[in-house]
């Protein structure tokens, strides 16, 4: 499991870990039943405090994305996949919010923005055809 942590981000590290795990589940890179590394191993790999990793896992367990099985590790739950679509939409809605805020800043209204999105979508499409 490849994660990337940036320390001075402003986003707490445990949240970065949890978000990236959720993203990977949503993107299909982590399937149901896959094992995620134990806390110590991940802490070593990312060079962060094990307590932070533990907190991230706690968060993921609370949201039902992972499940700790006694003695044999932590695994992605089946419930992860139906959340995939929900998770994807959540991620995109965050980006939409940022786009809308910037548009307001630049004094472009929502209608013009939607027209722009359609335009860009059409111009990108031919490249994906073959």
């Amino acid at each position, binding site marked *: 499991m490849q994660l990337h942590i940036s320390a001075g981000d402003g986003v707490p590290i445990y949240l970065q870990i949890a978000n990236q795990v959720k993203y990977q589940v949503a993107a299909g890179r982590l399937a149901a039943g896959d094992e995620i590394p134990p806390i110590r191993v991940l802490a070593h790999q990312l*060079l962060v405090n094990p307590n932070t990793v533990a907190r991230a896992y706690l968060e993921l367990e609370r949201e039902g994305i992972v499940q700790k099985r006694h003695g044999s590790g932590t695994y992605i739950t089946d419930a992860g996949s139906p959340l995939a679509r929900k998770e994807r939409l959540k991620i995109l809605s965050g980006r939409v919010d940022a786009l809308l805020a910037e548009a307001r800043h630049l004094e472009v209204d929502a209608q013009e923005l939607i027209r722009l999105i359609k335009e860009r979508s059409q111009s990108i499409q031919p490249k994906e055809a073959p």
Partner: protein
Amino acid sequence: MNSASHAIEINGLNRKFGAKLALKQVSLQVPRGRVFGLVGGNGAGKTTLIKHLLGRLTPEQGSVRVFGFDPVTDPVAVLSRMGYLSENRDLPAWMRVDELIRYTAAFYPGWDAAYAENLRRQFNLDNRTKIKALSRGENAKTGLLIALAYRPELLLLDEPSSGLDPVVRRDILEAIIRTVADEGRTVFFSSHLLEEVERVADDIAMMFNGKVVLTGPLDQVKASHHRLILRFDSAPPSPPQVPGVLSLTGSGREWTAICNGGRDEAVAAAARVGARVMAEESPSLDEIFVAWAGFKTE
């Protein structure tokens, strides 16, 4: 008198050097099994504080207890439970690496020779090199080796990463993580590399001019600070003053404010001087540090 609930307890510590007050009423509690980061600029008093922990300085006022023992009256009890890596790399220059390992092993009953050998191979240290011939990074790694090999209950690091390349810094961070991952062992380190502190610290304390300006769990500290982007209706002629804010930087109409705690009060105060809050973010530890550095605490 056995292990207390805290690894380190400092109460009301004062220290003067000549006319200058180096430590002013410093009080800290370092809980066991966690990583504690002491953050401060050069001259803030970090090394003076660590010297008190080692028993190198006697408290003029106040008390220092490590695992319940006083480092001045009970140096053996404290030092046999502590692994120390100093900033100055005081290893004896005339010794060789294997002699140093053999010498240090005699003082700690919990010395794990196999573990020491593992570390030595991992750090790529040749047994027969004299310590004065080691490069700076190898010197730091040797000091780390003899501090780790007996799995001390407390690992004390004084600016461990100063002047070292990223590879050696990774080794040191790994050592910190490995120590605290073993049940109950504590790490106390002082640093001004805030990115590293953010990665590995559980609790932090920030020192300026000998005073501890804030202390507590790292995520609480970060959660209690806010970065507000303010937009003034018209560019203020002189740098604006917003009460309740730690620092205000910027130019023209857009200014960045960092405040501690009272976020609503800060927003209200900003509105009073004619500014709107454009965005609100979580500052990094670096920005918090710089904000406090500029803030006149007395």
